[in-house]
């Protein structure tokens, strides 16, 4: 499958409540090492935003400061973005993607200890 097929998918919680849409996919390089090149890269989880669009600027994740005004606008727009670990998804082929936890149990992205690249 292609990575872009996951982007924009709707995500619902155990009870069917709307969580948001997939706005990015977090990859982790902790797979088994290979003969050549780098360790394998696996899908670790989904970044799920309650809003569409505007996601590429990266302000909702990278801890960088940036111009104050743009940071405020983007972070306000993406307020409530959550992180769904890949293993929480019950049925990876079903649409929408359903999580085996209630919405309140899904952590907010901003509460995660370290951003990507850390």
């Amino acid at each position, binding site marked *: *499958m*292609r*990575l*872009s097929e996951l982007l924009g998918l709707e995500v619902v919680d155990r009870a069917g409540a709307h969580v948001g849409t997939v706005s990015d996919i*977090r990859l*982790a390089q902790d797979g088994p090492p290979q003969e050549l*090149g780098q360790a394998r890269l696996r*899908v670790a989880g989904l970044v799920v935003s309650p809003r569409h669009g505007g996601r590429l600027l990266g302000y909702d994740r990278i801890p960088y400061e940036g111009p104050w005004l743009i940071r405020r606008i983007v972070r306000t727009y993406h307020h409530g973005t959550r992180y769904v670990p890949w293993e929480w998804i019950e049925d990876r082929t079903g649409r929408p993607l359903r999580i085996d936890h209630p919405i*309140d149990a899904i952590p907010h992205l901003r509460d995660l200890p370290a951003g*990507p690249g850390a």
Partner: protein
Amino acid sequence: MEAPVNSPGRAEFRAPAGRVYDAYLHLLDRQIIDPDGEMIAKVDDVELEISDEGVLYVTALLTGPAALGPRMGGPLGKAMVAIQARLHGTGGPGPGRIPYHLITDIGSAITVSAQPADLTIRGLEDWVRTRIIDAIPGASDAPQ
């Protein structure tokens, strides 16, 4: 390195160890270059494969109109895929494919350990080179 995340009232999970990338932010739409800095293509999409344990692994970078078209969507996206399917060169009708194991660095560009000539992903470049540009005198000279 695995650190459990505990948020009050929330379920626990294991935060990923090792390097972490956000695919859209760090991988998609970045420039792919060879070790000498020659530009090869853009990361137009990424191929994922599911393992027996249900883990999705990145298996290749996809390039060219057949990869970009579906992301673009709409009639334009369809046209890109159709044109690629009709005019494909040595690479076949699908997108260009750079296997994951060739990647040596993920930074502001993605470096792969292969020469562009060894990857069958540049059908149009080859066609333009041999049919048009090579026919113009001075095409293989360094500028003076």
